[in-house]
């Protein structure tokens, strides 16, 4: 991300910030979407939402840290920063000033799988945003002097998020431990040595490879007429030539056969425990069950981990679990806990494992299962309140195979049974599949 303090990781955050996915009465959401693919391959999704005179325009590029090679980590995120530093036509600062002059907000984030840019602003300035986005898709100026100063900014960002943040530092270590072949083991923000080294030429090549219309998705939601907007999109982007198809990510993480463990000692106030288990993504028939499982475990104060570890037995300041349904390649199911003072990381690790054993041993109650499903369903409706979130969810489903999956998602969640949860817990939460990270505060 370019400014506010939160970066990168957002793909998994749909669940983290208020429950799972998207949208409302299925009828309304999916059917109203106008979808098109331009001749140059740009995918376009438009959804009219006339409640306020505003619009959100989101450009999603199918490139993230997943597409990076060893020795050049962090380049996708670095490039995200540079996308705000000007083109031949619109010099440095023009993008930000244009958006602000029109009362708008803009920002971007880079995840393992995607790089996403958004502008929210008054609906009557939609044409302006489209022009700016088209311009920087094709005409970015990668001036070595600007790259040099932005490099320092990115390294500062890394200091904030990783080096001076105990949770960030531990997460990086666990990911690097869990993935040996697949680039998910590399930090999104990149290793410092790579950030220091990567050259303007490499950044330029990366830009030309991945920032092509046939590797991008444009989603707009707001107060417009879809047919008029589609015409504007064609005008703005139509002349950008299709690029070569970007190279596929070929790496496949081999099965894990034994427990892996990493301990980090550093200045911190409280210990932290992370557990990561390799799990399949949404292409698996087990995905819906894993999604429901994460809500049963940590969707609110009535969920298992909070109720038991935080509330009843007062062992943890916080505890939870999270599944990455939308991940493009198989990723990790994460668990975490922060012990209360007087409790140890060791204790919390054992307690988290005990919860997994219980999930394998006995089915979750009907009440727990129904509550989790209701939470998922309600969150779909809540998402519809915000055009920004509506657009984000359309994009996430489109990126995993098609925006219409949004509707079958709910059906798959409804179909999950207690036996499914028991089965997936047994299949994936195995000792030899475990990646453990322990943060011990340095005295």
């Amino acid at each position, binding site marked *: 991300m*370019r400014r506010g*303090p939160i970066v*990168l*990781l957002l*793909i*998994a*955050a749909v669940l*983290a910030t208020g429950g799972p996915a998207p949208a409302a009465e299925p009828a309304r959401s999916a059917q109203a979407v106008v979808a098109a693919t331009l001749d140059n391959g740009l995918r376009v999704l438009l959804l009219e939402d006339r*409640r*306020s*005179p*505003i619009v959100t325009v989101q450009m999603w590029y199918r490139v993230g840290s997943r597409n990076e090679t060893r020795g050049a980590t962090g380049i996708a995120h670095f490039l995200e920063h540079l996308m*705000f*530093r000007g083109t031949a036509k619109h010099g440095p*600062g023009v993008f*930000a000033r244009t958006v602000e*002059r*029109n*009362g*708008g*907000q803009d920002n971007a984030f880079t995840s*393992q799988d995607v790089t996403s840019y958004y502008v*929210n602003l*008054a609906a009557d300035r939609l044409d302006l945003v489209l022009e700016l986005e088209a311009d920087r898709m094709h005409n970015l100026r990668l001036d070595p002097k600007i790259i040099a*100063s932005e*490099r320092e*900014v*990115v390294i*500062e*960002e890394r*200091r*904030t998020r990783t*080096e*001076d943040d*105990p*949770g960030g530092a531990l997460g990086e270590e666990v*990911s690097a431990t869990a993935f040996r072949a697949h680039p998910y083991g590399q930090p*999104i923000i990149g290793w410092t040595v790579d950030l220091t080294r990567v050259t303007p030429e490499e950044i330029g090549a990366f830009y030309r490879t991945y920032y092509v219309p046939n590797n991008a998705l444009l989603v707009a939601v707001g107060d417009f007429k879809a047919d008029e907007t589609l015409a504007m999109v064609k005008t703005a982007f139509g002349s950008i030539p299709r690029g070569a198809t970007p190279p596929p990510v070929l790496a496949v993480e081999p099965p894990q056969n034994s427990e892996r463990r990493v301990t980090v000692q550093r*200045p911190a*106030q*409280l210990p932290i425990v992370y557990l990561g288990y390799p799990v399949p993504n949404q292409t698996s028939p087990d995905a819906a069950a894993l999604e429901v499982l994460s809500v049963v475990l940590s969707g*609110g*104060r*009535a969920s298992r981990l909070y*109720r038991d570890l*935080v*509330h009843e037995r*007062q062992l943890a*300041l*916080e505890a*939870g679990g*999270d599944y990455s349904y939308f991940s493009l390649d198989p990723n990790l199911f994460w668990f975490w806990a922060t012990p*209360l*003072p007087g409790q140890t990381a060791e204790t919390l690790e054992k307690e988290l494992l005990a919860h997994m054993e219980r999930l394998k041993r006995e089915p979750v109650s009907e009440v727990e299962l129904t*509550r989790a499903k*209701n*939470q998922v369903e*309600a969150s779909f*409706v809540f998402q519809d*309140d915000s055009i920004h979130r509506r657009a984000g969810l359309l994009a996430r489903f489109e990126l995993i195979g098609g925006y219409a999956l949004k509707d079958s998602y709910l059906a798959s969640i409804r179909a999950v049974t207690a036996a499914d949860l028991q089965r997936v817990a047994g299949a994936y939460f195995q000792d030899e599949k475990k990646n453990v990270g322990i943060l011990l505060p340095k005295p």
Partner: protein
Amino acid sequence: MLQRRWTTVCLIAALVLAGVPAPAPAAPIAHREVLPNGIVLLVAERPGVPIVAVRAFMRAGAVFEPPDRAGLANLTGSLLTRGTAKHSGPEIDAAIEFVGGSLEAGAGRDGLTASLFVLKRDLGLGLDLLSEVVLSPTFPEAEVKRKVAQIQAAIKRSEEDPGTVAARALSRLVFGSHPYGTPVEGTIASVGTLTRDDVVAFYRGFVRPDTAVVAVVGDVTVDEARREVLARFGAWPRPAAPAPTGPTEPAAMPPRTEVIPKDLKQATIMLGRPAIRQVDPDYFPLAVASYVLGGGSASRLYARVRDEGGLAYAVYAYVSPGRYGASLVVSAQTRTGEVPKVIDIVRDELGRMAREPVSEDELRLARDYLTGSFPLRLDTTAKVADFIVAIEVQGLGLDYADRYRAAIARVTAADVQRVAGRFLGPDTFSRVVVSATK
């Protein structure tokens, strides 16, 4: 990747207005009426999505704590949902989460807020629970102990976060013995001394209908909202004694500097000084000034510290107005060795605001942004709810959006220069640096 979930600390009322904008529709943003027991009812109809957000705000924030009971409002707020005459805390959690809704409560500087978010079809259930936690919390002893331990642990962990450490220290330097100088959550030691009796006394003294604001926003009509709120809050008796008034504006503190050693790669720099609330006509030129200085990615500090210097990822300036005082803050994070350079740039840019008028372009950009960003600041049900509560609590009036926009549009370069002379003198700022020492 992983995100740690943070416990919510709330500040709701003050934040919405921090540095913000206004304007909007000619129609009033909400319906307002005063119920017989003194509750101010605000209703904003927002049809289209079948959801409703409700806020119950009481003037029971940290400013009302006895000085030796820091953290009492926060503890009281966090206990509202932990047990009522009818339900235990876990029963409340289970009931609201079964319908996919949420019910949270907590205190900030100025007030204590209980917030409900539900599907429209569950509004009755949600309001039943909301009224229970506001009107009949029981503060079970075991829950008090549990919450004290959690808050102490959260304070301990927050010592890891240099931004939090710096902000706490800066508040102390800027506000001194004024309640805004004390952290809302208290300290590990102060929270450790709080008892259930303290909580009960604070609740009885300050959670009362004649300082309450109930806002209902979403797929609901005014009549329906009035009926449902009256049915649950109508019999809440207004105490005979007048409601307590809050503290007066803080006394001016001489600027001070504090360095807090922490073993970190990056230093956090915060400068701050007292400012003014929205009721002061100079607030509007000050909002423009702080925006030009460090409001966005087109600001002077962003350009010099970040874009040109590559010195920081985050650098910004903002005005933070509360009901009982206000501050102006400039903040940046940079590598340890560059602290003097960043401070020099910040001081230079502060001084320049008074030395020379802002350019026509900068002025126009700030005005356009501050007046034009309003629709986006009110584009969700929750944002509308927070905003209407904030303007009511701060006494700004439901037409504040329009007045704000008009006032910002009138600000001239000379106004900006004049308020910069009044508020941006580099030597008038206190300063905190959290940093490794070498």
